[in-house]
């Protein structure tokens, strides 16, 4: 198929998804798709992602389509430059299919906090697709696009991947350039990928990863070279952190994990129990560190530097307050207030200092486990399957705890991924693999071996 034919087919599917009310897209047009296709068809050769349409979370800037971050404050904003990941997709022959809906500024775990309405779970419209990259996850799960980009700050790709039954991979912090990713928590943010298979996710990650002179935190590491298909996991040790399998874990999630662990054992892996004692503190530590960084990063949205200016009388601070008060939604305002509070004089050491110390302890636990001979860790990705819309919006802390198993790897800067491992009452369940720094290739090979022997669409018992 030519890129033009692909673009027309994707346009038809995007139209169907919009008409079905999925609300997963924020911007796309047939004209933009055809312009992208024309560019791809004019390329001299065929790159590794030739003519593949990729959906892009709307906090990654693109010149071809607006970037809103799911916020009224950026409604209609069009970036003057493409993010590095967009340039790399273009160079590989891929094209931007659409911009996807998200929790405002990537703050949320259900994609209910978008200024442009919630995203529906593609298999059960009464439920959430997870978040904050819920639009990207839903489009891949619905078969609208084969792959998508999301972003992770504290699990925003792995958790929706688990809820929607797709593969989601977060690389090592610094593997992928953040240039052009609208900043939320700069010490945590990672552009991450969704696909329907582990192999597709590996291809996409391989294209976007690599050092970038425009992002000083990118790592000068060798590229992610896919391993040859692995038939046996003999010689591989998988650690099961006991803190991630609490007694009150959802029965379906527990059963799916038990089945996946049995398959890993059958593949020849050695299974050992390990302890990550500080992981239980990851969510409170995250909700100090991330809001603190967000409060600083979002200061630029004031109506003068960025953001649609709200009418205000008085001085320039009145303008800032009116613009930010009107432009930001409830969850973003809450996090800015928490971040401002924990960084304020008299509270900095009490909150931020403690959270940074806990972060180091969490990283130390992982290092200790890997130094002890564990190659990868296996855990549930989320404590439950997709929950119902509105179930947690009244209690921010209940929503935050949906990320209890994904936050620790984010705080430690480690690569981690979710892959589908079964279903409970028809809803997908994800299993999480966590790897040492820069060990993405081995993690993906292990996941691919597990993927081959699992029936991820089967109901667990």
């Amino acid at each position, binding site marked *: 198929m030519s890129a033009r034919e692909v673009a027309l087919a994707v346009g038809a599917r995007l139209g169907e998804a919009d008409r079905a009310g999925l609300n997963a897209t924020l911007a796309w047009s047939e004209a933009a798709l055809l312009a992208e296709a024309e560019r791809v068809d004019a390329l001299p050769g065929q790159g590794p992602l030739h003519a593949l349409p990729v959906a892009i979370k709307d906090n990654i800037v693109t010149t071809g389509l607006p970037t809103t971050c799911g916020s009224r404050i950026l409604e209609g904003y069009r970036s003057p430059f493409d993010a590095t990941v967009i340039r790399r997709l273009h160079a590989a022959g891929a094209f931007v299919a659409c911009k996807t809906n998200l929790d405002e500024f990537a703050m949320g775990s259900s994609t209910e906090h978008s200024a442009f309405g919630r995203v529906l779970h593609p298999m059960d419209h009464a439920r959430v697709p997870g978040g904050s990259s819920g639009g990207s996850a839903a489009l891949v799960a619905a078969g609208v696009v084969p792959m998508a980009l999301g972003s992770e700050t504290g699990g925003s790709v792995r958790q929706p991947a688990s809820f929607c039954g797709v593969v989601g991979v977060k690389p090592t912090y610094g593997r992928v350039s953040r240039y052009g990713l609208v900043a939320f928590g700069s010490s945590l943010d990672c552009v991450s990928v969704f696909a329907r298979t582990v192999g597709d996710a590996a291809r996409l990650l391989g294209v976007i990863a690599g050092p970038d002179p425009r992002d000083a935190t990118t790592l000068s590491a060798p590229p992610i070279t896919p391993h040859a298909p692995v038939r046996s996991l003999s010689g591989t040790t998988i650690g099961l952190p006991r803190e991630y399998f609490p007694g009150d874990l959802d029965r379906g999630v527990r059963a799916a994990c038990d089945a996946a662990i049995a398959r890993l054992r059958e593949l020849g892996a050695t299974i050992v129990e390990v302890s990550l004692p500080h992981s239980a503190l990851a969510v409170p530590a995250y909700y100090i560190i991330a809001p603190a960084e967000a409060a600083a990063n979002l200061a630029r949205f004031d109506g003068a530097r960025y953001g649609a200016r709200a009418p205000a009388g008085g001085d*320039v601070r009145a303008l800032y307050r009116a613009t930010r008060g009107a432009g930001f939604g409830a969850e973003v305002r809450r996090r800015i207030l928490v971040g401002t509070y924990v960084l304020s004089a008299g509270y900095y050491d009490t909150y931020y200092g403690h959270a940074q110390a806990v972060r180091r*302890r969490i990283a130390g636990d992982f290092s200790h486990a890997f130094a002890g001979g564990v190659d990868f860790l296996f855990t549930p990705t989320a404590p439950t399957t997709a929950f119902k819309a509105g179930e947690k919006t009244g209690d921010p802390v209940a929503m935050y705890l949906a990320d209890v198993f994904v936050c620790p790897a984010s705080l430690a800067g480690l690569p981690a991924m979710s892959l589908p491992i079964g279903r409970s009452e028809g809803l997908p369940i994800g299993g999480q693999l966590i790897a040492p720094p820069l060990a993405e290739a081995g993690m993906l090979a292990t996941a691919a071996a597990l993927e081959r022997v699992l029936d991820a669409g089967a109901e667990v018992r």
Partner: protein
Amino acid sequence: MAALAELAVAPADLAELTAQMDRIVGFVAQLTALGDLSIGAAEPLGPRVTPLRDDVVTPADLGLGPSDLAPEFVDGFFVVPRLGAMEEP
């Protein structure tokens, strides 16, 4: 706190927002009961391979030039409306 954060909050929203902030701060405050965690192993984060780089300026290579982003671009300066000039009196 809203004033520090430069956020206007409608009086009608204050009670609910205050309750939510109390809930969140109460939740994260569990860390403060742990004592001094800075003593002992201080694990550096992430892989230890990030090198220092030369501080060189690279071209921005913008998709849209600066002149496309402002109403006027004269003698190397943006000509933008005076603050407040675009609002209703």
